[in-house]
């Protein structure tokens, strides 16, 4: 579905992603790794927000390198950024609508998708008229996920979605993602993989800009090294 071939990225002279090759299949994929491993950078590279030093990225056979961010999004890649990137002065409702309005393929379904999203995150519906910037941290993250869903993506990328969410919602979220992967391919990044392994088919573990372990969810949960480093608390 999404193919990264030998990509490398750097900030200034500091290389952050080194000659990385990664194939993301339909279904759901986890990208795990500690702080600073380069997960967010890869996502930014997929979106075209960070430029590639080398390599290429293609999505469902379409070469992305020359495309602008919004064109990539129109192809069906939707991202829930780690920093949420909401529109703070717009209401919750407006944030959601903007999320659906600007992707041609999602436009017609806006109303229906909105209902679905509100079902997943009831708080959003309660707070339709609240300005996004005044929502609590966890509420904002829910809104960010909801907004990304509004685009009816073919590939949904979530960058550490559980950050700041209450335990019950984290739990629900991964259950939902698991259900959703029938219609949408999913890629999640996380540092702590216990919850997310429930939701993914395959996982990649990266450190220092490189992928060091790849395996199915089962393989990873039984891998003692992974157990030790990533399943802590």
């Amino acid at each position, binding site marked *: 579905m999404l193919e990264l071939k030998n990509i490398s990225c750097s900030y200034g002279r500091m290389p952050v992603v080194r000659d990385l090759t990664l194939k993301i299949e339909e279904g759901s994929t986890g990208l795990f790794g*500690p*702080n*600073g491993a380069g997960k967010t950078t890869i996502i930014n590279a997929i979106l075209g927000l960070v430029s590639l030093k080398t390599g290429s990225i293609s999505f469902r056979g379409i070469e992305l390198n020359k495309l602008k961010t919004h064109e990539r999004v129109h192809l069906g890649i939707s991202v829930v950024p780690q920093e949420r990137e909401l529109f703070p002065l717009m209401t919750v409702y407006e944030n959601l609508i903007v999320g659906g309005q600007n992707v041609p393929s999602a436009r017609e379904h806006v109303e229906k998708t909105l209902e679905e999203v509100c079902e997943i995150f009831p*708080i959003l519906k309660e707070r339709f008229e*609240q300005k996004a910037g*005044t*929502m*609590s*941290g*966890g*509420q904002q*993250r*829910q809104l960010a996920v909801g907004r990304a869903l509004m685009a009816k993506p073919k590939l949904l990328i979530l960058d*550490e979605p559980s*950050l*700041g*969410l*209450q*335990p*019950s*919602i*984290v*739990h*629900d979220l991964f259950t939902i993602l698991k259900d959703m992967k029938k219609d949408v391919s999913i890629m999640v990044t996380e*540092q*702590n993989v216990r*919850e997310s392994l429930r939701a993914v088919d395959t996982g990649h573990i990266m450190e220092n800009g490189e992928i060091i372990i790849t395996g199915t969810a089962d393989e990873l949960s039984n891998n003692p090294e992974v157990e030790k*480093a*990533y*399943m*802590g*608390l």
Partner: protein
Amino acid sequence: MSELRTENLTISFGGLTATNDVNFNIKSGEIVGIIGPNGAGKTTLINLIAGIYYPTSGKIWLDDRDISQIPAHERSALGIGRTFQLIHPLEGLTVLQNVMTGFLFAQKMGLKQAREEARKLCKTLELTGLDRATGEINILETKKMEIAKALATNPKVMFLDEVMAGLNSTETLEAIDIVKQIATERNLAVGVVEHVMGVITKLTHSVIVLDTGRIIASGPYKEVAQNERVKSAYLGGGA
């Protein structure tokens, strides 16, 4: 020995009462967890105590002084320290300079002394590369810087708002140790907001559980976690 106490503390934003009649206290040497669902009012409670918001009603006492109407910067000087859930480092300053601000203004030190003290503090937190810009440091370092900034104000009471979020397990364990150590060394009263229950069990003596602005339970985490209301409102099936 210090004590912070809130008395019927309430704030409404328009129609929404984000903190509702909260009576809460915390004493030196205590580490109290503040938990509850998203939007329960944890950050708002901290903002009220720190003086970012003024309460609609109710009072805040710090050692028998009513501080509920004095401005935030004075509360900081009086000994209320806090970190931010949504981190906004001071981008125009280096890491060291970020940490210095508390020494300079809350503790009213001179530049030279503040610089030395900040260095010392960062050293105890094992935070290095202090001349870097805040955009260049990673999350663990950022979190350490946040804690250092709060400590730099020489707090009697300190609130940590999801400082562990975004750290991996090793780092989280490290952070827990740091917080514990500092709390005992300085005999601090610490309020901790976290959604990772592992952290709460390891770190806190007791917790309060907020839901829609009200305290719905309090006591040691082990007891509270059995509370049905807490389970249904917050923990859910998985925990």
